C-alpha cells in the first residue's frame, strides 16, 4: 500500500489522496484479499475433490482455469461495451476509466485463456495451436482489444482517445457472441460448451464455483486499474496546472 505524505495538495485531494488515505483504499484492499483467497480456496477444492477424467486424466483440472478465465474475459468485454455507451451518452470520465480498466483486464484474461487452451491442446490434440474457428475467433478478439488499448496509448488528446476508443469498444463487442457461438456454427475441433446436462457431477460444482470466484478477482483488478487511471488523470491535471502557472507570469513579462 502507498500512503501519501501529509501536505497533499488540492489535486491530490481531488484524486482521493487525503492525509489518511491509502492506495488501494482499505475497502478495496480487503476485497482484493477476499477475492484472491476465495479463488485459491475454490481452486484447491476443485483440484482435490475431482477424480481424474477417464480420457484426459488430470488434464481435466485445467478446465477450472481455462473456462472461468474465458467467461470472465468475455464479461469484462461486455462491461467495456456498457461503459463505452455510458461514456458516449454522458461524457463522464468515470465511464471511460471503467471501459479502459475492463478492456485491459479482459485482454489479460483472454490471453490467459488462449495460453491455457494451448497447454491443454498439446497433450490432448497433439498440437499447440490450430486454426479452429473457436481458437481463431478468440485470437481475433484478443487482437481487437489489444488494438483498443493501443489506440488509447497512441492518441494523446484524452477526450479524443476516450471518444474513439468508446466507438471501438462498442464495435469490438460484436465479436464476443461470435466467439461464443463459433463452436456451434462451425463444429470442428473445439468441443461445444459443456453444461449441467452434459457434465459429470464430479466436475460441475468445481467449474461453477470457480466461475464465480474468478469474477471477484476480475472485479478487483478492474477496480484497481480504474483507480490507477483516476490517479494518472489527476497527475495529468496537476502537470497542466503547473505548466499553466509557469506560463502565466512569463506571458505577463
Amino acid at each position, binding site marked *: 500500500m*502507498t500512503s*501519501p505524505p501529509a501536505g497533499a495538495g488540492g489535486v491530490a485531494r481531488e484524486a482521493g*489522496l487525503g492525509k489518511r488515505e491509502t*492506495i488501494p483504499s482499505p475497502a478495496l484492499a480487503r476485497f482484493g484479499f477476499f477475492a484472491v483467497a476465495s479463488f485459491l480456496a475454490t481452486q484447491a477444492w476443485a483440484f482435490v475433490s475431482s477424480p481424474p477424467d477417464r480420457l484426459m486424466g488430470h488434464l481435466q483440472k485445467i478446465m477450472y482455469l481455462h473456462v472461468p478465465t474465458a467467461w470472465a474475459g468475455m464479461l469484462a468485454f461486455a462491461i467495456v461495451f456498457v461503459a463505452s455507451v455510458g461514456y458516449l451518452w454522458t461524457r463522464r470520465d468515470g465511464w471511460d476509466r471503467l471501459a479502459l480498466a475492463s478492456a485491459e483486464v479482459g485482454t489479460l484474461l483472454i490471453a490467459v485463456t488462449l495460453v491455457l487452451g494451448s*497447454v491443454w491442446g498439446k*497433450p490432448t490434440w497433439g498440437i499447440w495451436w490450430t486454426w479452429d474457428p473457436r481458437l481463431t475467433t478468440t485470437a481475433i478478439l484478443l487482437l481487437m482489444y489489444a488494438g483498443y488499448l493501443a489506440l488509447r496509448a497512441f492518441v494523446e488528446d484524452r477526450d479524443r482517445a476516450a471518444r474513439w476508443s468508446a466507438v471501438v469498444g462498442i464495435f469490438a463487442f460484436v465479436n464476443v457472441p461470435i466467439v461464443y457461438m463459433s463452436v456451434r456454427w462451425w463444429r470442428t475441433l473445439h468441443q461445444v460448451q459443456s453444461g449441467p446436462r452434459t457434465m459429470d457431477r464430479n466436475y460441475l460444482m468445481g467449474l461453477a464455483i470457480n466461475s464465480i470466484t474468478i469474477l471477484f478477482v476480475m472485479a478487483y483488478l478492474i477496480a*484497481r486499474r480504474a483507480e490507477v487511471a483516476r490517479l494518472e488523470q489527476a*497527475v495529468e491535471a496537476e502537470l497542466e496546472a503547473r505548466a499553466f502557472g509557469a506560463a502565466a507570469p512569463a506571458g505577463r513579462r
Partner: protein
Amino acid sequence: MHSNWSYVVASYLLTAAAIVGYTLYLRGRSREAAQQLTGERE
C-alpha cells in the same frame, strides 16, 4: 490414461504469474502516480 502433471502445473503457474504480475504492475503505477501527486513536489 494420461497423467500429464507437468501441463497441469504449468497451467496453474502461468495463471498465477499473470494475475500476480498484473497486480504488481498496477501497484507500481499507482505508487508512481501517488508520488508524483504528493511526495515529489518541488
